[in-house]
């Protein structure tokens, strides 16, 4: 029997569960903030075209607008200056086979609840690997922080006078994942793949700098990572085919085998 037939049979038999990793696109969902003098990404906005009314009697539809980096979204290598000249670096040119990959879910929820500025380290990853096995090449590494459970936008963004405080990887951890583990990309539950205070790391925003510089991808604002096993899930994350796009909101899902 072919691999795909096995898959569809298992799926039909309920042996494969789909976990939605996507936040709902809505105007209320927090969006990224930059200093006000800089260019700004559009937050998600939606305007009614008609709703069975004089503007369109039998149909309901909306126009929506948002930046490429809104809600649960995919980052392409071209997003960062370090990945600007790579081949296949934009949403339309990335080979589609990269949109499906195994997921290794690192549960940092305890550390993140204790320290909003928690930085994932190489030591932490190696300790995790001793328990769960080595991270396979071309796999998504998803950092579970339970940040998506913060439903209050203020708690989710977690700003104070020094800016944002959210967890993320440190510089060496990113380099390790790229150079030693050859990952497909890095995903987080918070608003960036980098930590809230990553501007102060060297280089600033290391996850963007090194991941994209090596042609790897990012996923952020993920949810339901707590429903994924540490290993064994498959992530399907295909961005919109925007010409030369730097990223895109998307419906990210994970396939998980039922026990």
């Amino acid at each position, binding site marked *: 029997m072919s691999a795909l037939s096995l898959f569809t049979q298992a799926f039909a038999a309920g042996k494969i569960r789909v976990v939605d990793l996507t936040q709902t696109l809505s*105007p*209320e969902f927090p969006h990224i903030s930059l200093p006000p003098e800089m260019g700004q990404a559009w937050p998600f906005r939606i305007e*009614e075209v008609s709703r069975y009314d004089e503007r369109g009697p039998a149909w309901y539809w909306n126009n929506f607008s948002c930046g490429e980096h809104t809600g649960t979204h995919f980052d392409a290598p071209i997003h960062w200056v370090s990945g600007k000249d790579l081949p296949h670096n934009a949403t339309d040119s990335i080979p589609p086979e990269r949109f499906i990959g195994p997921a290794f879910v690192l549960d940092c929820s305890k550390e993140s609840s204790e320290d909003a500025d928690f930085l994932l380290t190489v030591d932490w990853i190696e300790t995790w690997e001793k328990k769960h096995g080595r991270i396979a090449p071309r796999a998504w590494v998803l950092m579970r922080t339970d940040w998506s459970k913060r439903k209050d936008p203020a708690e*989710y963004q977690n*700003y104070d006078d020094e800016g944002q405080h959210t967890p993320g990887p440190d510089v060496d951890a990113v380099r390790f994942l790229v150079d030693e583990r050859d990952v497909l990309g890095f995903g987080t539950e918070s608003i960036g793949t980098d930590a809230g205070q990553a501007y102060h790391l060297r280089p600033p925003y290391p996850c963007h700098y090194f991941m994209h510089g090596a042609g790897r991808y990012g996923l952020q604002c993920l949810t339901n990572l707590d429903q994924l096993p540490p290993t064994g899930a498959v992530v399907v994350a295909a961005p919109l085919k925007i010409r030369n796009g730097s990223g895109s909101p998307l419906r990210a899902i994970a396939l998980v085998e039922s026990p």
Partner: protein
Amino acid sequence: MILKKKNPILRTRLPTLPPAARSRVALGLTAAAALGRFELQQCSDCGAVQYPPREACGSCLSTQLLWKQQSGRGELLAATVLHHSNDLFFRERLPWRLGLIKLESGPTVVAHLHGAVPAAPAPVRVAARLDRAGQAVLVALPDKETTDMADDRQLREFTCDPKLRKLLVTDGKTAVGQALVKALAAAGAHLIWVGYAEPWKKFAGFEELKALPQVTLVPLDVTDSKNVRELAAEIGGKVDILVNNAECHRTFGIGNRQGVETARAEMDVNYFGLLRLAQEFGPAMRSRGADGLASAVAWVNLLSIYALANFPPHGTFSASKAAAQSLAQCLRAEMRPAGVRVVNVYPGPIDDEWNQLLLPPKVAPAALAAAIVKALREGVEDVYPGDVAQEWLERWRDNPKALERELSS
């Protein structure tokens, strides 16, 4: 003045307007009253001041008539109280006091009489005020200011006094917004809803605003239609005065900013924000134009003197304010049947973050707030607070083309 709570099961009466027809020449009185000024025609040939306005001088038939500011000082010759009227507006407001006043400048005029004006003969000060129809009428005030003068039942029909009223200030994050809230609270506002966008970003002054007993903070982003619609559904039926101070101000012309995103953000807040608010809050306010002592009464737009003529260093901001001014004129026409006044505020540069590189004079937020409260109290329709705004207004009225050239050099 004590405000009784509204019985929510009683019918809210529909707004009516006082007689609104005016000749074109009589609109000269309205044009001045809109700015808070009392002007009458004066003959350039014989010097006679006349009222009512006419095409020619009543003394010498000259057509060389100029509108001149009047002190309004005069003497009440006779007073009467109206107990009957077939006019829908006045018959709902009887009894109504009227008087005959001999102005020092010559003419004798009929004017609405403030309650504190004593029996004739008595010295009075006549002012031109806009009525609910948006037209100028003459009001005789006591010669000397009295306490609670603004509370007069008749005078309150001509003003938009925030006292006892419920207000929405659309942006509490800015220095101007915070100064406004404080000034309105001090002016006796009953309730002030204060909007703030991006509620996850803390802002300076938040705690201070929150501590004011009149204030309720509400998340409001005028670029989010759903947010505006839902807030209007929640509180729109109670807002008596809406102060739209939400503003996006960046300091670019055409050539020194690539692309349209910054200009679009300015338009989205300054123009579409006003449109969204007007569509969602306008209908409920229009239905409450005659809702007793604390009726829906005014809509204030924070525009800019740059709405009159483009200031190229802030070129896209100027354009968005010009668009907002045009839309505010539409809003004014649509709110007028309900007697709700649209007040446009045209400050010069405000002393804030985005005017950092402009030399003084700049309007202090507190001064701007005070000017807005004063305009509401006096029922003024167009406000030009600050020296820069006043000077630009004069130059613009004198010669708009000259101002365009001066600003572009």
